[in-house]
């Protein structure tokens, strides 16, 4: 009964942006990883996950993101995350996931950062 995850991907001058709409849990594993792979196949080295429209994420969903970060690290790609609610940022901080990605309040802030 997950609100199906909808992924919207687009390119900007600075990074590939992957918007995660709806619920991020284990059911999104394949789709999220594929979105990342598709994004970097174009040659970009920075990927921003915009979670402003992420309604719900649990630790299974965080595990999906960890797997992406793991892949990105091996390939020398950078993962940014924006739009995480304070509610879920608390969980990201608890498990120390926020230590391994660069987090921003908004997509604009992420893309403006040096």
């Amino acid at each position, binding site marked *: 009964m997950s609100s199906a995850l909808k992924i919207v991907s687009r390119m900007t001058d600075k990074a590939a942006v992957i918007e995660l709409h709806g619920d991020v849990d284990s059911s999104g594993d394949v789709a999220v990883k594929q979105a990342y792979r598709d994004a970097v196949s174009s040659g970009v080295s920075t990927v921003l996950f915009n979670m402003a429209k992420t309604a*719900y994420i649990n630790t299974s969903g965080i595990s999906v993101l960890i797997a992406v970060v793991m892949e990105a690290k091996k390939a020398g790609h950078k993962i940014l995350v924006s739009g995480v609610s304070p509610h879920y940022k608390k*969980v990201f901080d608890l*498990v*120390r996931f926020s230590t391994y990605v660069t987090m921003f309040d908004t997509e604009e802030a992420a893309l403006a950062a040096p």
Partner: protein
Amino acid sequence: MANRTVELKIPCETGYEKVAMRMASDLAEKMGFSQERAQDLEIAVAEACINAMEHGNQFDVSTKIYVTMTIHEDRLAIDVVDEGRSGRPSTQVEAPDMQAQIDGLIPPGGMGLFVIKSLVDEAEFVEPDLGTGNQFRMVIHLQQPGQPGA
């Protein structure tokens, strides 16, 4: 005043934990807990339900997860009960080794119980009321010792 209970039976399918988590946070706010505490509980209940689905019921869709919320004068207790298809998971928990997960040395995951214990005042397995299954209890207190209210 007698305690009030709210009982919920949800399918063993991911996604349905959202019903329990929202009910728990609604009850918490109704009792006077802050929005932050209610949101903490919401996350903890979701994780507990998923643990029950995965570890207790082995994601068997023919099974159910039973969630009982008991409103006490000074606390809210949430019991999550599975049908005990596997052994009771340990409640010993360490902080997840995120570095090892990012480095691919260990598989991502295993963070649910740590998150639960970080967000609520009490979290433990208790003797199941019905004598079967695993019963996991989470409690948040309205007043915590030394702290000015919830």
